[in-house]
């Protein structure tokens, strides 16, 4: 336990210090969401109809595109070697790193959601629904995204390639995230059904992500 909490604390600390990337993800989220109305046009009714979709897309892109250095930085400075050799199972260490990333880069997105909701003319209920679905769904994004981050180490190449590999995996999360938010706002479906599927997706990815990432890191040893 100390090992894992040490890892989590370290990663969060680095993300928040000068040179860390936590702020940039939120800014990207802000920018992408602010961008959408320019594309869609200043039709407030349409915007509030699309609001949840826009927020979800922004959060999806922001959390995937910040992920590519999750393992790469540790690989480059040799930390990953020591993590692999340690007494902590690699799966747990991967999970801890993803959790730290979610806390430092995912949670701020959710905190920023209400502000963006105002810009998109969402009412309180809608904003709350989106924030809640993001809270349930972004862990799934981070934990499937970490598979791509691990592949980036194996392939010695991050950036867009990683996003292209991971985006298809995150489509189900996006679908049920938006569906649950829409259900909460306009019906006719109940909020519960898609929301519980979303939670289930998050739980499944919480298991699959670390295993797949650890396997990919082990096979990428070189």
């Amino acid at each position, binding site marked *: 336990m100390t090992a894992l909490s040490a890892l989590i604390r370290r990663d969060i600390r680095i993300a928040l210090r*000068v*040179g*860390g*990337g936590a*702020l*940039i993800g939120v*800014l990207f989220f*802000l*920018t992408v969401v*602010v961008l959408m*109305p*320019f594309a869609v*046009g*200043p039709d*407030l009714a349409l915007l509030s109809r699309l609001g949840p979709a826009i927020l979800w897309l922004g959060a999806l892109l922001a959390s995937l595109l910040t992920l590519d250095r999750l393992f790469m930085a540790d690989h480059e400075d040799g930390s990953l070697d020591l993590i692999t050799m340690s007494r902590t199972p690699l799966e747990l260490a991967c999970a801890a790193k993803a959790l730290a990333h979610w806390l430092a880069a995912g949670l701020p997105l959710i905190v920023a959601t209400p502000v963006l909701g*105002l*810009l998109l*003319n969402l009412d309180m209920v809608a904003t709350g629904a989106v924030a809640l679905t993001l809270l349930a769904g972004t862990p799934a994004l981070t934990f499937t995204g970490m598979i791509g981050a691990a592949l980036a180490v194996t392939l010695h190449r991050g950036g867009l390639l990683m996003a292209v590999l991971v985006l298809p995996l995150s489509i189900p999360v996006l679908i049920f995230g938006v569906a649950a938010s829409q259900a909460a706002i306009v019906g006719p479906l109940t909020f519960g059904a898609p929301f519980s599927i979303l939670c289930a997706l998050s739980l499944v990815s919480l298991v699959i992500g670390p295993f797949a990432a650890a396997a990919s890191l082990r096979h990428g040893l070189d």
Partner: protein
Amino acid sequence: MLTCDYQNTMTLIDLANPTRFLALTARVLPWLVAATVILLTIGLYQSALAPDDYQQGATVKIMFIHVPNAWLSMFVWGVMSIASLGTLVWRHPLADVAAKAAAPIGAAFTFLALLTGSLWGRPMWGTYWEWDARLTSVLILFLMYLGLMALWRAVEDPSRAARAAAVLTLVGAINLPIIKFSVDWWNTLHQPASVMRMGGSTLDKSFLIPLLLMAIAFTLLFVTLHLAAMRNEILRRRVRSLQMMQASQKAA
């Protein structure tokens, strides 16, 4: 050892000039604080006394906060642009300190302009937010302030960050005329200029005087905060240089 030679050659360029600036700041700052407080008090008092507008009712009081902040949001970017020229053209060490210290203050003013504008927009236009040209261009200004702050945070070497930030600031200055003239170019919801315009102000004196007082007070507030923030930034760089020196000194 290699490192010990650095002590002789190191002149800490960063600090050569700002020393005088620090002394100056120490003397000027108390006066500035006093002036700001006095003017702000008078301004607020005058704003409270101002009559209600025949169209806008009491909400016109928001103007005394909104307009100075809106002006300052652009003014601060202007200051940063001049400082950026100083960084790029004259490579003056104080210039990047000035630019960096101004960014968070400018962002705060811009945020206030946006917020008070939204709060004013609700009673006046029936909505907090509208994607109109003036409002949007101010929002872009806010995003660019945040982007600059992110840049300063993301890069560890301050002189590197300074040069990049300077280029970006100058490019972003294109946004200033767009904000200023957007109401004239595109027919939008937002008020056209009534104070600063060709052919004199159209605003009634009972609004104009408190507005100008508040504007001067907020400008003084900016100058005060900016000087203090610049002092902090100089000290931060001094700490950094000393830490680097400590790292190379003790190894010898």
